[in-house]
């Protein structure tokens, strides 16, 4: 794969600050997140990890304005995201939700063209720049050969790359991904993670919710560990991830090894903890 063309990252891509201040979120009867503060480091890959139900997907939904917070605010460049027009946000922040689904019969290229919609208007339906950016997004996700194939005929990994390509075509400085590799096999996972690394190398700020702690350590610059709606640790993966942290997060004991290639932590020798976990 070639490096990303500057087209996808220049212009609007001056680093964008995304932060949560005193954020509380929840559903009708239960509060999932309470008083959470978080600053997403610009230009880096941030991975949010934690056990099931710790609020990591809820946090991502809050950061991407899918759910309204019950208190506090999410700030995009210092302005409350809820007060910004939705299209305006869509030009600065792209999102790949977990439940992404498209209508039947859509081809890959058509899907990716939808990513340009926030930049278009009634009288500017398709500029030359739109065409160039869709081409670049197709190339970046290595989908040129598959461009005319219908989405439902593709493998899980290819489909996920197509969705990411749509988010790339939005040409936003910020990209939020909710479990981009869930339900993918190992090969496809690596495919997606390497694409994410490339995007980061081109200057995008990326936030992703990841289930697998070892992958998070390997591909993220910044790790946010959540437990019961609170951030209990954050920082560079090799600084943050310790056996104690893993036990606190997941209630398991483990041994930490080092990946011989990337020198990032790998979780091994997992056993059920004898100590009762908190809560």
């Amino acid at each position, binding site marked *: 794969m070639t490096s990303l063309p500057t087209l996808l990252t220049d212009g609007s891509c001056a680093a964008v600050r995304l932060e949560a201040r005193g954020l509380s979120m929840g559903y009708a009867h239960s509060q999932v997140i309470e008083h959470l503060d978080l600053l997403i480091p610009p230009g880096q890959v941030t991975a949010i990890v934690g056990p099931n139900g710790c609020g990591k997907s809820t946090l991502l939904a809050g950061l991407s304005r899918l759910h309204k917070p019950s208190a506090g605010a999410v700030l995009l460049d210092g302005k409350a995201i809820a007060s910004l027009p939705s299209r305006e946000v869509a030009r600065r922040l792209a999102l790949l939700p977990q439940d992404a689904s498209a209508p039947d019969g859509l081809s890959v290229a058509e899907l990716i063209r939808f990513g340009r919609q926030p930049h278009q208007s009634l009288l500017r339906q398709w500029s030359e720049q739109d065409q160039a950016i869709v081409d670049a997004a197709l190339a970046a996700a290595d989908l040129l050969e598959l*461009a005319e194939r219908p989405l439902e005929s593709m493998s899980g990994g290819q489909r996920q790359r197509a969705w990411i390509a749509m988010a790339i075509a939005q040409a936003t400085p910020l990209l939020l991904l909710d479990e981009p590799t869930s339900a993918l096999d190992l090969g496809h996972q690596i495919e997606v993670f390497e694409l994410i690394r490339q995007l980061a190398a081109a200057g995008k700020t990326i936030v992703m919710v990841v289930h697998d702690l070892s992958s998070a350590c390997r591909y993220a610059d910044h790790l946010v560990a959540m437990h019961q709606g609170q951030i209990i640790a954050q920082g560079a993966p090799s600084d943050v991830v310790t056996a104690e942290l893993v036990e606190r997060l997941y209630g398991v004991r483990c041994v930490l090894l080092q990946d011989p290639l990337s020198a990032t932590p790998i979780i091994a020798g997992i056993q059920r903890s004898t100590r009762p976990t908190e809560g």
Partner: protein
Amino acid sequence: MPRISPPLTAHCVLRLGDYSLLLHRRSSTVALFLCLALLLSSAWILAFGANGLTPWAALRAAFGQGEPMQLLLIRELRVPRLLSGLFSGAALGAAGCLLQTLARNRLATPGVIGIDNGATAFAVASIVAVPTSLAPSALALSGAATAAVLTFALAAGGGARGYRFIVVGIAIGALFGAATNLMLARADIDAANAAYPWTVGSLNARPSQAVWLLGGGLLLGLPAAKLLVRALSLMRFSDSVAIGLGVRLRLMRVLSLLLCVWLTALAVAVAGPVGLIALVAPEMARHLCARHGVPVLNAALCGALLMILADWLGRHLLAPIEIPVGIITAIVGAPYLLWILLRQSSRSSP
């Protein structure tokens, strides 16, 4: 150097300086053909059965040229009926397309979810039960709105599953249908006869006032629907994707529902509950356009075509008995509804 992706094969781009328009080739061609088909069948229907009248002469007569007898037949009798068919069919086709996209379910049409019955009940009320000076059209509008609001409000709490929403609609429709029967049972025979066309759907001798109101409504409604199409095409994705691309989901839902209610009510005020047009026309349009986007305009054209053909069939199938157009569309549409229902697997996106 990256290779260049295939160009927009299915579209053509019109460019003028900074401005650009994206036209889907197939949809545009289909629209042209449908217009042509509408023109031809209109001329044919106008001329049909009148001695020595060619379709061309009929069209000329419709625009005021020809012998006085022909002019009388065409302009006073046939043109109003044709117009009411064209307008109501177009309105129902577009409304069906909007609602199907909104509910992400091909079976959600104004008739199935009770909007037709609501409009009918209120219109019948204005004729038989509550003598008011308000025109039936205005009351049909409020009836349609009431039914739509009730259905959406009652379905919302039970989870957003598309099929639940439809069954709530069936129940609301049954309520309004019972209310209509209630009023008809209380009414004296003249009022009941006056209200009869409202209950089956017929284009026979419709009040010209309502037809012009519908024409005006279409003039407003169709361009508005066309403006919504870009956002609506994103609403075919899951909610989170649509929000991520900057769609104001709630606003769009309310707008398209309002538009749907507006079009349905005006059409029902003219033609009565001919709901199944709203099911078949968008489906036909989608099929013709190779499932591209949200074909609101083509659905309207298909609806108009289907409506005038069904009305023609109803008039001539058992002549001299006239079959109301609502019965024809039900006989054609219901098996079709069954067919989609049984054929589709558990997923059903429009």
